[in-house]
């Protein structure tokens, strides 16, 4: 690096690469990379190693490469595992169906006020995730703000409830992750060149035809990015199931937490976490390989 400093002397040609310059990006990346290596990559390796240990909390754990732990936890918790993926998928579909028109409206109809509506969309993020979910608990409570009056007016039977049902959990997930769908879709729609739309109408395509054959295909990368950004966190979430759900809506996140902290079955918990992570990452990477990661990263950066 000393040589790099010396070549700054005036008179040296700028166009020539300084010898140290090739190393510059590595020096810039190094500190953060070390942190991620130590606290992201290593932990994942340790988690896998822990999942292949046997023993218990009192006598300690030994590395035994006991692969059947994986089969055991999947057999025991396949219901919650499948449920998590189903809830995650349901919330993702709901987010896409609810969010697409909103993104469309903001991109094409909001005019000068686009940024205002985008800001409104992001407002929930200024409120703690747990408080937001807890607020739904208040809204959906059996005699709460929503169901209470409906029951008083006789529109619902007195024993009707929403909390602890799959609807409440999926609804909570949809609510919490909707902006993650709307933003990337909006970004994609925003990029659609109005000239293309005009060309389509000039060629006598109907409005529906223009939408289905021009706008929608052009916005699909955004939808794909949105699907990733909602499906992964929604399937792995356990706050919604914890606050809005009941015993019959437990998701895999709740199980992992119980395994680590209540049952102290570390290998089982680690195996379950790795199964979840592996399944989701596999899905993500297949998806990203097919469709590119730029949209996801761009959406995440907004």
């Amino acid at each position: 690096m000393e040589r790099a400093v010396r070549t700054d002397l005036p008179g040296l040609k700028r166009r020539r690469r300084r010898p140290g310059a090739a190393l510059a990006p590595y020096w810039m990346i190094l500190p953060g990379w070390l942190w991620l290596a130590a606290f992201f990559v290593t932990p994942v390796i340790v988690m896998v190693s822990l999942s292949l240990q046997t023993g218990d909390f009192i006598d300690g754990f030994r590395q035994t490469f006991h692969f059947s732990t994986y089969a055991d936890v999947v057999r025991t918790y396949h219901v919650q595992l499948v449920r998590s993926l189903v809830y995650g998928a349901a919330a993702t579909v709901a987010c896409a169906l609810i969010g697409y028109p909103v993104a469309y409206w903001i991109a094409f109809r909001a005019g000068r006020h686009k940024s205002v509506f985008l800001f409104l969309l992001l407002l929930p993020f200024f409120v703690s995730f747990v408080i937001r979910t807890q607020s739904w608990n208040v809204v959906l409570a059996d005699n709460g703000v929503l169901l209470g009056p409906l029951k008083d007016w006789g529109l619902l039977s007195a024993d009707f409830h929403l909390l602890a049902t799959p609807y409440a959990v999926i609804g909570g997930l949809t609510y919490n992750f909707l902006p993650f769908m709307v933003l990337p879709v909006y970004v994609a729609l925003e990029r659609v060149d109005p000239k293309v739309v005009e060309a389509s109408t000039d060629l006598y395509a109907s409005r529906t035809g223009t939408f289905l054959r021009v706008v929608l295909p052009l916005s699909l990368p955004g939808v794909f990015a949105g699907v990733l950004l909602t499906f992964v966190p929604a399937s792995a979430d356990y706050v919604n199931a914890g606050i809005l759900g009941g015993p019959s809506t437990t998701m895999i996140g709740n199980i992992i937490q119980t395994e680590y902290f209540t049952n102290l079955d570390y290998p089982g918990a680690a195996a379950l976490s790795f199964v979840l992570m592996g399944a989701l990452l596999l899905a993500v990477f297949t998806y990203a390989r097919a469709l590119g990661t730029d949209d996801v990263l761009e959406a995440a950066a907004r």
Partner: protein
Amino acid sequence: MTTHTVPAAPEAPAAPRPRRARRRPTLSVYTFLVLAWLLLPIAVMVLFGFNDTGSKVNFTWQGFTLNWYRHLFAIPNLTSALVNSLTIALIVAVVATLLGTPIGLALGRYRFRGRGSVDLLMFAAIAAPEIALGAALLSLFIVMGVPRGYWTVVIAHVAFCIPYVAITVRARMAGHDPTLEEAARDLGAGPWTAFRLVTLPMLLPGVASGALLCFALSIDDYVITSFNAGRTVTFPLWVYSASRTGVPPQVNVMGTLIFVGGLLIAGANVLFSRRRAA
């Protein structure tokens, strides 16, 4: 139906945006409904901070009071949880910004061997489910016998924040013209001077929003925190455990104050970047 649209056709080429004229109200109404749905829990939070409730069971509206604003810090461990959250978020924002900014800069400015794998690492860290990240770190701390607490939360938060800063800064770099810096170098500025006077000012809004994002992500995080907090309680952890028995009104008041504070900071950030961009 088509005959109705025919008279409008001749003037279409003249007007640059004929589409604006025929907006359909359905979609607008729908969008406003969805936005209302998004804002409903916030309204509930703000409203219930003023709820004159007698007990912790805070499910129905009982009347207006400022009591909870007056006794905001009446619950000692809630207060300390909030202080923990705020200080952790501050440390995380500073550390993650210091570590993440150079990564974003390197990714945005240089083509180098291994760039793709750094990109992949960022992507994996963002795409990995939070719970897996939390569980992996917990496994590391368990195996290494590290007691969990305040600093393990900081470590975990910095780890998940770095990629967000890197990506925010990289996005900012994308719009940057590298010839500006070269011009500065041609005018005799050293690499550091060129960076300080040309690149850094241009980058600052990105760095600022990266730092704010970290602060927001950290203060809001429940999942990773719950796995690595040990006996340390943060604001979201306190609220989650209270949600079983009933959330006291002070939580809504604190949530409202954080909300308003966040809005003010975001507003300041917008003004700041506007001024920079101008």
